[in-house]
């Protein structure tokens, strides 16, 4: 089992979700975050006080998958989330020791296979 952690642009979320459904990935968790990387920073001005915004809105998608699914999932995200501009984001693949489905107490791959 692996946990795939993809950091993407908010405006790309719908495309990535679509791509993941096509890749048969049915379960995932989305978190709104802010990122810092190579992007040029926005400058905002409030009543003569100027601030540089070092953090940019991003979205993290966490996907728990069994080994066979890792590559397809990564590819799906990679293609759907790419714009070619700095700021597209990263994908981290983390090892997982166990997964439990709370509803059924099923474990591991059983816990992440589609319900239907």
């Amino acid at each position, binding site marked *: 089992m692996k946990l795939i952690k993809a950091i993407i642009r908010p405006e790309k979320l719908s495309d990535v979700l679509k791509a993941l459904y096509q890749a048969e990935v049915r379960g995932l968790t989305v978190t709104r975050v802010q990122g810092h990387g190579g992007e040029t920073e926005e*400058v905002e*001005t409030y009543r003569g006080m100027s*601030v*540089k915004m*070092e953090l940019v809105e991003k979205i993290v998608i966490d996907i728990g998958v069994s080994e066979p699914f890792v590559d397809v999932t990564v590819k799906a995200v990679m293609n759907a989330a790419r714009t070619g501009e700095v700021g597209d984001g990263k994908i981290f693949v983390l090892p997982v020791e166990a997964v439990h489905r709370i509803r059924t107490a099923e474990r591991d791959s059983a816990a992440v296979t589609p319900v239907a």
Partner: protein
Amino acid sequence: MAYTTRLGRAGEGLTPLLSGAIRLALPGLLLLAAPGLASAQEAAAINGGDTAWMLISTALVLFMTAGLAFFYGGLVPSKNVLNTMMMSFIAFGFSGVLWAVIAYSIAFGGSSPYIGDASMALLNGVGLEASGTIPHILFMAYQGTFAIITAALISGAIIGRMKFGSYVAFISIWGLVVYAPVAHWVWNANGWLFGMAALDFAGGAVVHVNAGAAALAAAIVLGPRVDYHRRAMLPHNVPFVLLGAGILWFGWMGFNGGSALGATGLAALGVVNTLLAPAATLVVWSLLDVMFAKHMTAVGAATGIVVGLVAITPAAGFVSPMSAIAIGALATFPSYFILRWRAKSRLDDSLDVFAAHGVGGFTGALLTGVFATTALNPAGQDGLLYGNPRQVVIQLIAVGAVFIYSAIVTVVILKIVGAFGGLRPSADLEQKGMDVLSHGEEGYATGEGAILILDEELNGTAGKK
């Protein structure tokens, strides 16, 4: 018509008879200065009760534009909330100043049936003297608040995708070449629609059909937003939408009630109808929502209230309260279904200014021609139900003329403005949101990772940008 003869028959007891169709004639007449009339005017002294009501009515209509900013602002995603609200607020400035400088004179000056003149430019000759029973400057300011909100109304059609500078240029020009002449047609004693005895108590044609037509034209000229029909645009703050609707309803009491230009029975009629018509629309809209959206929605309730307010605007001083309930109820249907159709169409009139104001104002104007009665307002006209079918035709001509003129000239202005500054930002900037890009602000900043910078840095960074 009615009015002049009336004045002929002694200027006495004018106020209670003032009607939407005639009231705005007064300043115009002042300028004609036909001796007989002039003296009749001098005779009419300033009345305290009337002035008190018009003072507060002016404040109420001013407040409406702030309400509109929330009605619109709540309906857009948070990345565009400031841009949307600023499109209303900036009208306070540019449309407001231009009104005093020249637009008021274009609207209410001169004797041509089609357009005013510059005789009252820079408020020349607009002072504390009586216009009807209130000070002339107060009448000017009251009318100015109408010009401001009409310009702001248009923005709903193009929010989130127009360069702000071009927008400011557009509404500034629009106020001079569209709003002011149209007001002249309908509300100046010499206006050609006024001469036809078209009834428009508080601006169904001048404000709502006018703004609705401009909105439709603007939505078409600018085209849909980049992700239209690809990505849902959800209201980021529905309570703001309800706040806007509440403020609009509150202010509309001055909009319709104040159009009597005095604290008269006519004003009472206007206020009562402005209470009952939207109430009826709200009921019918909610029931339609249950049938078609499976729920009574809050956005629907707010929208229904506004549609009802729009529909009663031209009729408020000409129809009975029970007729107002009928108008409010009937006006629900066209707006409701056109709005539903629009959502699925190629037309990105983003906040449905056309369906709510254009269609609502159109329906209201026609129904005014149906329900109007001189029993309540002798200076008005009888409508279809009171044996005068002709009035419906007159109403149709009035709204039709306003609609066509407004739509065409709006296209022309936008083409010209576009030729200079361009109308739309680049697609990727539009997707990122207009607040940061065209105002350099966020609506709801958290301050995380915000670093203070000194000016030299700023210029550096800005250069990089």
